């Protein structure tokens, strides 16, 4: 296991090879994060004042809410994840990025795809399937961009100098294989000209959503944490054997979750999913043990740095996984289904777990890749505390509202309007949480963009200096 990577002479070369690709991926991701959270705030405003956007079809809740979720998942989570995967593959392999220009093209294709998809949703051109709302043109762009980056990552992976794989490799390489399979299946069977019939559509939709929002994010997030935590704590991952167990159980049990237990489909499907949901506890416990054993007692002062982000992200992952497993249990699902509990779990997964791990990784890698300090390191630390506050204020009230809503929905004598009225108070608090998250996202974007601009100015100055420099005497003579 190559934990204490020897600082070899090509370090600067590795960083330089990654620079443009990662800026292209992370810059767009930061924009979509801000856009997604802003759309989320707009969506929840509808619950405060239902008639707010009555004359504006673009901002009606049914369009803005999926657009917000897609901007977070496809706009922020995936490109950030791809950038981090490229960085980890290059670092662990001690090799510069293979095909360094391909991810730059791919990143632009990706962001163009997200833009087309989001505009489409707001204009009403959605597919109607959860997490697959993007129009066909957008999906094709995303798929092509993903393949380009996956090819680059695979080439970098193949060129690694250390043949033995780090546990992070398993998770991240699996994620690279996972996405094309599920995304192509779902799009070909649901968004194609001759989609499958009847309830097979939602079944495949649930399969896809589970494999993307739960399994894929878990693979990348946990893989990244398994790289970052030992590295920052300067201790080995405890242990490779546990990690292998966690990896295999996560992919084998995780892939079977996702069909809600009361769904109007043949009963064997939700039964299998509930079973898999219960078994999900196994990888969750294994991952928790690995994290505790790896960083327990490590004397790292993080005070809002990447280490804090990663730790908090892992805590949220375990929580989100437990909520997910609880939602799969038929006994609780009867109450929690169709309530705000589901969205609370999804937001915890996206913003509490995955986004936090990505922030940690990006704050860790960006100064190295750019060979410059963060422009506003204090704002990065502030981002951490604001994010914790935002996640707590956003997710906890929403989950409580969901439980209360579920219990009240079980009593047929409580009118639906009263059920909704009781959720309103919690909803107001959760909107505050969204505002904090939005503020945090702005701080994040500020750091990235100022860094990019400084780098571009420096490039420009170097170029200018090269032009203005007096020619060497020898050339003048010639």
């Amino acid at each position, binding site marked *: 296991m190559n934990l204490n990577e020897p600082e070899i002479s090509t370090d600067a070369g590795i960083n330089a090879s990654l620079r443009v690709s990662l800026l292209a991926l992370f810059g767009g991701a930061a924009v979509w994060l801000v856009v997604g959270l802003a759309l989320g705030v707009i969506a929840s405003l*509808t*619950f405060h004042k*239902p*008639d*707010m*956007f*009555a*004359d504006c*079809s673009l901002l*009606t*809740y*049914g*369009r803005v*809410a*999926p657009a917000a979720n897609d901007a977070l998942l496809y706009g922020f989570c995936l490109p950030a994840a791809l950038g981090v995967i490229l960085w980890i593959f290059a670092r662990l392999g001690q090799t510069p990025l293979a095909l360094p220009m391909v991810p730059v093209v791919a990143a632009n294709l990706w962001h163009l795809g997200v833009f087309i998809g989001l505009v489409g949703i707001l204009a009403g*051109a*959605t597919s*109607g399937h*959860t997490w697959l709302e993007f129009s066909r043109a957008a999906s094709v762009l995303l798929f092509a961009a993903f393949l380009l980056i996956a090819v680059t990552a695979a080439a970098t992976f193949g060129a690694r100098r250390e*043949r033995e*794989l780090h546990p992070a*490799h*398993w998770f991240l*390489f*699996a994620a690279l*294989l996972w996405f094309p399979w*599920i995304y192509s*299946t779902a799009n070909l069977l*649901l968004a194609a000209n001759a*989609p499958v*019939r*009847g*309830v*097979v*559509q939602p*079944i*495949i939709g649930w*399969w896809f959503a589970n*494999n993307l929002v739960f399994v894929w994010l878990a693979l990348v997030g946990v893989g990244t944490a398994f790289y970052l935590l030992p590295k920052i704590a300067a201790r080995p991952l405890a242990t490779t054997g546990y990690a292998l167990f966690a*990896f295999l159980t996560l*992919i*084998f049990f995780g*892939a*079977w979750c996702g*069909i*809600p237990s009361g*769904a*109007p*489909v*043949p009963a064997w*499907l939700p039964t299998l999913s509930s079973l898999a949901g219960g078994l999900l506890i196994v990888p969750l416990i294994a991952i928790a043990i690995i994290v505790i054993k790896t960083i327990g007692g490590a004397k790292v002062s993080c005070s809002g740095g990447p280490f804090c982000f990663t730790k908090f992200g892992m805590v949220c992952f375990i929580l989100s996984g437990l909520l997910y497993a609880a939602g799969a249990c038929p006994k609780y699902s009867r109450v929690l289904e*169709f*309530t705000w509990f*589901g969205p609370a779990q999804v937001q915890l997964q996206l913003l509490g777990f995955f986004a936090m791990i990505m922030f940690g990784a990006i704050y860790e890698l960006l100064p190295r890749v750019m060979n410059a300090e963060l422009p506003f390191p204090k704002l990065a630390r502030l981002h951490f505390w604001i994010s914790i506050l935002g996640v707590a204020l956003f997710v906890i009230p929403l989950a409580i509202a969901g439980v209360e809503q579920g219990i009240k*929905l079980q009593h047929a004598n409580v*009118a*639906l*309007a009263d059920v*909704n*009225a009781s959720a309103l108070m919690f909803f107001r608090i959760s909107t505050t949480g969204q505002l904090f998250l939005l503020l945090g996202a702005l701080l994040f974007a500020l750091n990235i963009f100022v860094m990019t601009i400084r780098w571009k100015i420096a490039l420009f100055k170097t170029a200018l200096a090269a032009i203005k420099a007096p020619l060497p005497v020898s050339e003048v003579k010639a």
Partner: protein
Amino acid sequence: MKTGLGVFIAVVFALGSSWCGFVLAPTLQLGSAKLATVLNSTDTYPAQRTGDATLGLQIYRANGCAACHTEQVRQDGVACEVLLTGLGKNQPEEFKKFMQSLLPLPEWQHHSKELTEAFKDWNGTLPQVVLGRTDKESADKMADLLKAAGCKSESQIYAFGTDITRGWGVRRSVAADFLYDNPVQLGSLRAGPDLANIGVRLADANIQLLHLYAPKSVAKNSTMPAFRYLFEVRKIGSAPSPDALNLPQEFAPAAGCEVVPKMEARELVAYLLSLRANVPLYEAPFTPVISAKP
């Protein structure tokens, strides 16, 4: 795991197995589903939608109605009830005594409380519930007993559960309900009521239009956003449009103006009215008669 090949094989097995389970198998099982047959009838279900309603499904999709509304009714179970519909030559008092004589019998012991309750204050009004929530076997036995006693009775099957008590449907939603939908939008959040049976519950197109234009004009505490962009507010021409909404005063447009639904609003309402999951099917049986269940 030392090589990429190991990871590759693990992924192919893990994701491949779930792909076979949740993509391939349902496609084979349900992908060629045909029309279902209505229970005790030769009718087929579901009925093909009208053109308007088919277009309306796309309006439902484009505006993300499924973000707040589900189209899936849940039920806790199915039960039988036995109704007494005629006493024959018996007097109510005699019948009461007959029922009391049943109570000590072992097969009716677990129904004794219910039977006592049912006939405590009964003065002979019909129809009267004899057994409100029982299984098929007991219901048949009771029906046989009543027949032997010279009384007339009816046995009914019904589904029960919170959603059904709320009036959102008469039975649970099943796969057959969604045969003609594309895309199928089951929904996952009930910020609003379930719509699986809205075409039966609220069959008046004008009320549906009013509700879309100004939800609070129909349901006072509604949290639904208004969809005014599906309507046109225009000056009244030479004569008021026959399609204009008949709005209550507080929601009415300025004087001299009228609110006319656009094509989209009419199609959406046609789709809503086509949501009628109200026939008994083999997998979701019930007796399609208005029952006097408790």
